[in-house]
């Protein structure tokens, strides 16, 4: 929190002020495009850019009543729901052996696990396309997109839950064993309740990633449209304020979900305490 040194010579004080100003400028620059995107979506000017001629909600109204947007939203949510379910269940179960067991090459797996996160979506998309179409001769559909996105989102859940398990005080599980709980009772009464916030955060995270994912989905979903694909195809015809509005809505949804995911551990704790107060009162 504090400065490294509080008492400064004059030269040092000037240098610090300059650096602070510079950093603020950088931060502004980093966030400017996003801010402008949102700004333009409220702009009455129908070219979706400066000058701002007035404020309007018209583009939002247009977007919300567009049947193409409706279809895209429905598909996006359907895919996201399936991806979330798969990632949460598969990811949680896969996180346990990563932290707990004597799985061979455990450290190796952990590093390699970061790969699907690091590997460009383009390559995941390409390789899954090769696998599904050229090898399995499957028809592309929502389901192939779900599988493709899950390959990308599951590692996030694994890492989140594994991090929580890593930080999990093993003594708690030993204490439960010591007090007579068998493996399943330990899991149900001690471990799962305590890692639940991480699972929930992982699920929310997977949901958000799925909402926003473009390239893997684009390769694998066939003729269907998700919201990012809708935005992409619209942009090809030119930037319109309607697209800005759709993009802003997608952004708002994603940010809200991320905020909830970050705040989750505290929310769960508070809810639990409230329940406790009621039950013991």
């Amino acid at each position, binding site marked *: 929190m504090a400065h490294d040194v509080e008492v400064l010579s004059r030269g040092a004080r000037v240098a610090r002020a300059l650096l602070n100003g510079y950093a603020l400028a950088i931060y502004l620059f980093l966030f400017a495009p996003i801010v402008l995107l949102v700004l333009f979506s409220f702009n009455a000017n129908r070219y979706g850019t400066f000058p701002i001629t007035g404020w309007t909600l018209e583009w939002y109204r247009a977007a919300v009543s567009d049947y193409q947007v409706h279809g895209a939203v429905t598909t996006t949510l359907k895919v996201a729901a399936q991806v979330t379910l798969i990632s949460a269940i598969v990811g949680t179960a896969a996180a346990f052996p990563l932290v707990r067991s004597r799985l061979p090459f455990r450290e190796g797996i952990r590093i390699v696990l970061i790969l699907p996160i690091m590997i460009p979506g383009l390559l995941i998309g390409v390789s899954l396309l090769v696998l599904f179409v050229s090898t399995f001769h499957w028809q592309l559909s929502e389901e192939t997109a779900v599988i493709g996105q899950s390959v990308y989102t599951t590692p996030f859940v694994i890492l989140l839950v594994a991090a929580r398990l890593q930080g999990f*005080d093993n*003594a*708690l599980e*030993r*204490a*439960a*064993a*010591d*007090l*007579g*709980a*068998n493996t399943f*009772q330990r899991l149900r*009464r*001690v471990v799962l*309740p*305590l890692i639940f916030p991480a699972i929930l955060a992982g699920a929310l995270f997977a949901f958000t990633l799925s909402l926003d994912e473009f390239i893997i989905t684009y390769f694998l979903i066939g003729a269907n449209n998700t919201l990012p694909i809708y935005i992409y195809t619209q942009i090809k015809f030119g930037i319109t304020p309607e697209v800005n509005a759709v993009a802003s809505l997608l952004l708002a949804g994603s940010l809200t979900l991320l905020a909830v995911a970050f705040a989750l551990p505290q929310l769960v704790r508070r809810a*639990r*305490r409230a329940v*406790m107060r009621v039950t*013991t009162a």
Partner: protein
Amino acid sequence: MTTVPPLADADSRPDTAGIDLRGVVKQYGTQAALRGLDLQIRDGEFFCLLGPSGCGKTTTLNLIGGFVAPTEGEIWIQGKRVDQLPPHKRPVNTVFQSYALFPHMSVLENVRFGLKMDRVPRDVSSERAAQALGLVGLEEFGSRMPAQLSGGQQQRVAVARALVKRPAVLLLDEPLGALDLKLRQRLQIELAQIHRDVGTTFVYVTHDQEEAMSMADRIAVMNGGRIEQLGTPEEIYRGPVSRFVADFIGDSNFFEATVEGAVAQLPDGSRVACAGGRSGAATLMVRPEAIVLHGGDGSIAGHVVQTSFLGSYIRIAVETPAAGAPVIVALRDGAAVPALGEGVMLSWTAADGVVLEPGPAA
């Protein structure tokens, strides 16, 4: 070097009371955490496993508790062999170093957890949990969450939670390590009282020699996966069997010496009294409070490099050619204190000069 003689017939059933570890070895990969441990703990005693970190004391506790499987050897508790039983089937309960209270359960639920697992009816378990909380003086705290308690209170909840199951053996893994000195001293007295009240065998792990000495009936001093000495606090303090034990329990001064009968010759040529025992090269150990300044016959010469008033005693550091490090002398308050730099003579009675195997400084 345990004082418990090995049983004549290795296959005979051990004594039905207490805990019996027989030839227990624990390897982690190629590393030996325990190198063949034979240990009998009597029913109802307050037993301490004492040693520095890595000496194997916690591994021993974990073996008894069932969290760790022995590589070799047998573990018997009250006449029943337990080394293949998982922890939830052993008649022992543990107070963990971190307390390991379940953070998502209230204090009462924590204490009742063990009874719930045993399918004790709810009304009975509530009553017994309240009793256990009473034993540690926390009747009023049942509805609190663990995070709302102080460290000392959490420690007491952990004791109550373990004792509520009425185990044959209570294992305690440095349960006071996280608390400050004054609180630790108070809880030492409390734990000893609880031990007398419930009559259960306590096996207590610590690296703090004062803690071990203040509570234990018997202490096993461990080092490098073995028991180096086993006995009452007084036996160990007065008659350490090795330099390691002498250094670990209490303060001590060491001299390289050549012993003949009850006389030890030090590197500077001075000859001092000692308890005797072995002859030839040896390490001579003398406690700071056993040294007399301005000694008579058989004294060694030195000069004072530090005098510190420490309240209950005055600590004098004396540099002398007879020893590598300054010799520490503890004077009782009220004794004549030499000045800094003053030359002094040191001596002690023969019984206070303990002769040990020769060995390098720790």
